[in-house]
């Protein structure tokens, strides 16, 4: 703000300048004359003169040579091109109020077809030198901030597991914006021969183009806009059309590209707002503010201030999604802890224990030797469960052992014969703990034994896209539809914990009983 105030201080000179009268002759010679009417001077320091012109030339103020820009061509010596913009000090004796004549005499060997006008602006010499410093201090501040942000987010992207594309996009936009500022203001640091004047403008143009594509694209990705390819293609077509129509009008093209960026982004944000997406309103307000800045701040870098506002909005969205990631991470940890607890609880549920103890009482009373075997089966099941309780994946054979042990316990309770069969099991495979056990428990609860028997058949097979476990319970189903209460929820949660969304779980009756299928994609 302070810098803005410094930059925007009132003009301290009043003058009028006629249009340049230019004569060109053979050998690329030209002579331009500008009449400057000094009306008021509010400083006592030396007067300066700023000239915008192509070519290499000498400058005369009221016929007094005040300096030169480049070296005009002479017979045998080619032209050494000057810069498009040059500054001169005017002797105090010649800087009084009134009309002065500026003569610019030299050669312009190249870029004549550009037909560039000559312009002369008197100004406090001190201010002419100081103005770029003030502007640069502000611009460098922005550029530095975005360079750091760009690098930071690039590192963040390359070092993170999730590789959020928005993070990469943001890093790219930040770096592009840094380059844009550097390209725009490099003119203050190095002398660019007028022959390369358009090189810089072309660079600025394409950087603006890239920013105008990537910024709305960022919002589209962040807010998961539907028809993304269509949106992006339309945006690029529009930008290219603007480029084509206004070919050669560098400033206008850059301006129109910025406007396109603005409207495309606002469209995406309105979509997001309509779908009550987080942060959309705030970012929209940012865009509103950036428009106000562009409209009412008439500096070279008004555009860049509004860009900065937009980038700050994106930064805000970045932190928002970082927080969401954090929350997702926390809740996944919470889920793991909950599942672990659920596994531990499985066999110490009061009703499981109480029912088991009731049967045990009976075995002890009726047949103590069997009772002892029952206790051993129960403790073996507990052992396996406890051993698994901290794991998220266990060897399949361990899980099968657990199922068999559970069946042994239930056989004592239910006095039903449970038969376990397995086919093509690969002992090297891993599976989340207690999910097959949960399906076996369901099978025991929901199947009516046939001939007082229930068969469990576990099959494994590999396919082109993944691998599949099928657990079949043969018996009569008590109900046709199992909504699958806590059991199925546990199975699904465990699968999600380990495989994200690369799994499928189905459970349905078939003619011989019930079939559970777990499919794990590669």
């Amino acid at each position, binding site marked *: 703000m302070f810098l803005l105030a410094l930059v925007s201080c009132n003009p301290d000179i009043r003058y009028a300048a006629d249009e340049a009268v230019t004569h060109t002759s053979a050998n690329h010679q030209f002579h331009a004359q500008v009449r400057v009417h000094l009306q008021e001077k509010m400083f006592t320091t030396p007067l300066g003169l700023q000239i915008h012109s192509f070519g290499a030339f000498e400058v005369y103020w009221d016929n007094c040579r005040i300096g030169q820009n480049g070296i005009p061509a002479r017979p045998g010596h080619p032209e050494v091109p000057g810069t498009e913009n040059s500054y001169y000090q005017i002797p105090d004796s010649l800087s009084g109020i009134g009309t002065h004549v500026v003569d610019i005499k030299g050669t312009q060997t190249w870029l004549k077809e550009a037909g560039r006008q000559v312009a002369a602006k008197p100004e406090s010499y001190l201010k002419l030198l100081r103005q770029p410093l003030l502007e640069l201090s502000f611009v460098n501040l922005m550029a530095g901030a975005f360079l750091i942000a760009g690098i930071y987010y690039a590192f963040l992207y390359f070092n993170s597991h999730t590789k959020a594309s928005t993070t990469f996009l943001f890093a790219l936009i930040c770096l592009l914006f840094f380059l844009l500022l550097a390209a725009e203001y490099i003119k203050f640091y190095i002398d660019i021969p007028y022959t390369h004047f358009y090189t810089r403008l072309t660079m600025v143009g394409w950087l603006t183009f890239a920013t105008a594509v990537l910024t709305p694209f960022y919002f589209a990705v962040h807010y998961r806009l539907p028809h993304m390819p269509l949106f992006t293609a339309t945006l690029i077509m529009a930008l290219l059309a603007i480029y084509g129509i206004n070919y050669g009008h560098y400033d206008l093209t850059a301006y129109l590209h910025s406007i396109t960026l603005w409207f495309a982004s606002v469209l995406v944000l309105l979509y997001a707002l309509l779908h009550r997406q987080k942060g959309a309103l705030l970012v929209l307000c940012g865009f509103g503010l950036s428009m106000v800045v562009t409209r009412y701040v008439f500096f070279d870098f008004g555009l860049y201030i509004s860009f900065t506002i937009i980038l700050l909005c994106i930064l805000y969205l970045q932190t928002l999604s970082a927080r969401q990631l954090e929350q997702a991470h926390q809740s996944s940890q919470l889920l793991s802890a909950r599942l672990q607890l659920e596994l531990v609880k499985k066999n110490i549920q009061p009703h499981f224990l109480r029912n088991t103890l*009731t*049967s045990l*009482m009976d075995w002890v009373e009726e047949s103590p030797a069997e009772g002892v075997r029952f206790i051993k089966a129960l403790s073996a099941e507990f052992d396996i469960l406890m051993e698994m309780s901290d794991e998220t994946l266990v060897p399949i054979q361990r899980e099968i052992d657990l199922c068999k042990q559970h069946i042994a316990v239930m056989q004592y309770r239910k006095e039903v014969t449970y038969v376990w069969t397995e086919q093509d099991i690969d002992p090297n495979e891993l599976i989340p703990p207690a999910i097959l056990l949960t399906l076996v428990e369901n099978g025991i609860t*929901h199947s009516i034994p046939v001939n007082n028997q229930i068969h469990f058949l576990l099959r494994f097979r590999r396919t082109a896209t993944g691998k599949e476990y099928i657990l079949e319970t043969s018996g009569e189903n008590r109900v046709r539809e199992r909504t699958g209460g806590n059991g199925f929820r546990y199975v699904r949660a465990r699968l999600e914990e380990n495989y994200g969304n690369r799994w499928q779980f189905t459970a349905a009756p078939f003619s011989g009983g019930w079939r559970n299928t777990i499919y794990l994609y590669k």
Partner: protein
Amino acid sequence: MNILILEDEMRIARRLARMTKQYFEYQPAHIELCDALPKGLAYVEKNPVHLLLLDLNLNGEDGFTLLQTMVSHSFHTIIVSAHTDKAITAFAYGVLDFVPKPFDEARLFKAFDRLRATTPAAVPEQTLQHLAIRANGAVKLVPLAQVQRIQGAGNYSELRLFNGHTELHDKSMDALEQLLPADAFVRIHRSYIIRWQDADQLLIEAGGRYAIRMKNGEVLPVGRSRYKNLRARLG
């Protein structure tokens, strides 16, 4: 005596059957075992049942609806369950007792003893809250707070409600008397159970017949054998 055991774990069902047989050793008792709800319901519809031993969570089902259906029948229900947290609810719907698993002979016999007791030994917070009534194949719950008094109607009981309506309950006066909280409801006659707080005065009518005047002016008969107790209670 016809006793139905609804229990999905065969070992436990046989244990219950064995102990029940032992308790009713000197009574001709038939014991029926069912391991699933549909079979149990079918049996109840077709056969006269006198006592039900019920596991609340049959085959993973939530036994709440089942409980309502069962307590609306004429027979007494004793819950035998591992879900001890359901005890209060079970009592609220009018079960005779709740036997938590694991149980031994002594605990189960205690529940059977209550079949014979004239007054239920209700623990204050485990009291009956609703009476389940069957009407047109559906079970309806009548909050006990709405019941003014109960009158005998053959093998059934008629609930007289404060709103003037009457509802028929499948349980006998004897069975209901066992379930009702003894401090609030009093049996004054073979055919009458009243709210004690509504009683006003004991009367001796001509011919040595006893009666009680209610606060609303109604006069109800008092059984000869119950007079002494009532007088003691009125003080």
